[in-house]
């Protein structure tokens, strides 16, 4: 999914997920490094050294899973909780099937309240978890639920 500007991405996050970014997390347009996320508390957003933060979205790489891991807990809607089998399948790059509870499009994927990132929910309930080859993981352990998160 392409976003032309930080503002467009911000509006999308609000409309699709009900996410209002906290004041200290800023999105910024750059000429050749996509839309970047950085901290307001780092001071001025213009630095002589270079660009701060990391890429939230770019034309080449698409949306960053790590960006969604950072903000996903703020979502109010279009969140899909996965069981362990589906979580592990998703993380390793497999497509999974779910009964449709959200409208097709991007969804936030969670496991026991932990934010895995975003997935692409397609028409018949299949979910893709876009992940780069190097980020694919074979998980070998278990984790308890994130306290107080009912996502």
């Amino acid at each position, binding site marked *: 999914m392409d976003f032309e500007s930080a503002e467009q991405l911000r509006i999308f996050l609000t409309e699709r997920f009900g996410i209002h970014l906290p004041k200290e997390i800023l999105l910024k347009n750059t000429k050749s490094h996509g839309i970047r996320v950085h901290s307001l*508390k780092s001071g001025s957003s213009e630095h002589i050294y270079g660009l701060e933060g990391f890429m939230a979205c770019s034309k080449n790489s698409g949306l960053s899973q790590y960006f969604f891991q950072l903000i996903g807990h703020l979502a109010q809607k279009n969140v899909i909780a996965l069981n362990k089998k589906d979580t592990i399948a998703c993380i390793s790059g497999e497509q999974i099937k779910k009964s449709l509870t959200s409208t097709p499009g991007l969804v936030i994927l969670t496991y026991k309240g932990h934010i895995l990132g975003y997935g692409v929910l397609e028409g018949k309930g299949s979910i893709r978890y876009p992940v780069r080859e190097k980020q694919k993981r074979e998980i070998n352990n278990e984790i308890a639920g994130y306290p107080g998160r009912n996502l």
Partner: protein
Amino acid sequence: MEEKEFLDWLSSFTDSELAFNSLKSQKDSFRINTLKIPIATFEEISQLKCEPLGWYPSARLLSVPIQLGNTFEYFLGYLHPQSLSSMVPPLVLDPKPGEQVLDLTAAPGSKTTQISSLMENQGILVANDEPDREIFIVNNLSRLGALNVIVTNRDAKHWPLKKEFDKVLLDAPCSALGSNLNALRRFSLPGIQKLATVQKDMIISAFDALKPGGTLVYSTCTYTKEENEDAISYLFERRHEAKLEKIKIKIPHEKGLDGLTEAWRIYPQTLGSEGFFIAKIKKVE
């Protein structure tokens, strides 16, 4: 260099057999990434068998081995695999939220992300390294949620901005004799001399980047005097406003050589981790 020859050489610094065996038998360790999860919450959700260490609340030593890179905790950015010794230089640097900090040779970004976490994502942290190593830093920054870092690719021997930073970490490229058992095969005197020349240029460059009153931490994961105490002495000869400072945190260590007793040597048997050299230098106003 053969193992026996190395042990003979190392015995002039410490109990070499103990050091060598401790390095070989070291347990894996990791740092809880407080940028993404509070320590108390991590303890609630994680089922990894590990033990805390008194000197750093985020440090954990694995009691039961597991491939950390294949855990939920790693995938979610809640932890970062890191040797115990390599957690010490950022603690000595003691960065504060709101400061301007430079990590001059930052890849792969373990210490960078630790510094960002100590700064609570507030202030500016410049992480510099060679262009082909940038990808390692960027991956770790995004996975761990470090938002206050700027990655640059300048030549660390000639850092261009003078008197800009409150704190600078120079974890210099070195012969790695303290951390890598394969390194002793590459060990040679000309090789060490070459590295020492680079380190001397870098320490001057790092020191000049400091504001008056600022702090430089110089570290390596090796034992040779040429790469450690000699680099510090070289700086003192050329920059009279450089003063060695006492490291106030309480972590087991041995004293530096050649009268540099405020510098630290950490041998593998000291922390059950890699060998390290650490010196804290103040730029007096």
